[in-house]
């Protein structure tokens, strides 16, 4: 069997002397791994850098086999982000999260599109940190752990939403959350998706919320935690 699709390189692991096992996030087939002969050799190594957009042909005798990829580079995002310290760490964090938390071989076109859009934001947008936080919130939604920030979980009010419940991921209004405010996460306004410009503190608050639910998801997957790459990115970002 074989298929062709666009994919974003999530990871490349050296296999033997010259081959590599490459995991792509493809539009129609989801997170999919395959063997690339010569993939870690000097000629092809540049193609299989994390974040690059490629066209991929996947081929195997049986669908359950690892299969092999033949890829062609479409957009060399890795080369453009390599020199940007924080953006590179954000890219590695996002790709590591997709690799860690998204089930393999399940189509998630929305994750592919959002990851592709995120990479463009990292390259071009000065407000990329809030873009990254919104991407994490969207990714949680795709994983089935989405935040429900449409109305207050206690009163149904759509106004004055300032907290998030760590248990349910639902928004809580200021009045309803006041008695429990020590146990609730502050909800940064920009997460409501109304186009507000976020400052560093608000972005860190958003990372606290998304980090909590990403951890919950990771625990549910296999009892482990979220990738170190996200911790390193957060550490760097909080010191900026």
């Amino acid at each position, binding site marked *: 069997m074989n298929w062709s699709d666009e994919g974003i390189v999530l990871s490349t692991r050296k296999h033997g*002397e010259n081959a590599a096992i490459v995991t792509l996030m493809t539009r129609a087939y989801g997170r999919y791994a395959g063997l690339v002969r010569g993939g870690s050799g000097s000629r092809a190594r*540049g*193609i299989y850098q994390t974040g690059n957009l490629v066209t991929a042909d996947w081929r195997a005798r049986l669908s359950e086999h690892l299969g092999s990829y033949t890829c062609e580079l479409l*957009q*060399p995002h890795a*080369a453009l982000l*390599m020199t940007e*310290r924080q953006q*590179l760490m954000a890219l590695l964090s996002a790709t590591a999260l997709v690799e860690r938390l998204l089930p393999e071989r399940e189509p998630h076109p929305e994750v592919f599109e959002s990851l592709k859009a995120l990479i463009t934001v990292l390259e071009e947008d000065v407000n990329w940190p809030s873009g990254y936080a919104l991407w994490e919130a969207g990714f949680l939604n795709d994983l089935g752990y989405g935040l429900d920030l449409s109305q207050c979980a206690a009163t149904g009010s759509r106004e004055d939403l300032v907290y998030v419940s760590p248990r349910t991921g639902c928004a809580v209004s200021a009045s309803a959350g006041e008695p429990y405010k020590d146990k609730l996460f502050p909800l940064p306004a920009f997460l409501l998706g109304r186009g507000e410009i976020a400052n560093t503190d608000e972005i860190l608050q958003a990372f606290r919320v998304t980090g909590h639910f990403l951890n919950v998801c990771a625990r549910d997957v296999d009892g482990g935690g979220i990738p170190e790459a996200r911790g*390193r990115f957060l550490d760097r970002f909080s010191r900026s």
Partner: protein
Amino acid sequence: MSSPEIERLIQMLSKLPGLGPRSARRAALHLIKRRDSLLDPLASAMAQAAQSVQPCGVCGNLDGTDPCGVCADARRDSSSICVVEDVADLWALERASSYRGVYHVVGGTLSALDGRGPDDLNIGALLGRVEAGEVTEIILATSATVEGQATAHYITDRLEETVVDGEPQFRITRLAHGVPVGGELDYLDDGTLSAALKARRPV
């Protein structure tokens, strides 16, 4: 078919990079047929290397002495440290004969997939050298891969942390990315071209 000694030799040779079981068999036969000129000298060289070659306590280079020949060379500029991933990278830079400073081998790159974190790399010793010595420049010569550059950024962060207050006494630089010598633009990959354009400089 072969004696256990020969089988073991073939088995060990087949673990070397570039050799599979068939080529290991050929190499073993070649060695055995040339006992005096190859097998004995090779065995003795390997035994000697196994006994004396060790990582340099200062930079992590492999040498028969500690500190290694590079660190012990008084003609080298010890105020300039070139940070490399692996000893092979150090050897490559030495082949180019264009750098006369000293080195620091970190021993790989940060890799979530391989479970290699900052504690697995020889970064603490580099920070110790910077804090202790008269270092004026640190050249980050990690590979131009996402993992190599992520490691370089991480090292930069850690080095910047060593500056408590005021201006740092050293500058941090990295190798340029771009068009190789003898490279024709038509044959370059898109990533290299993009990096070269991004890193262009006035003439």
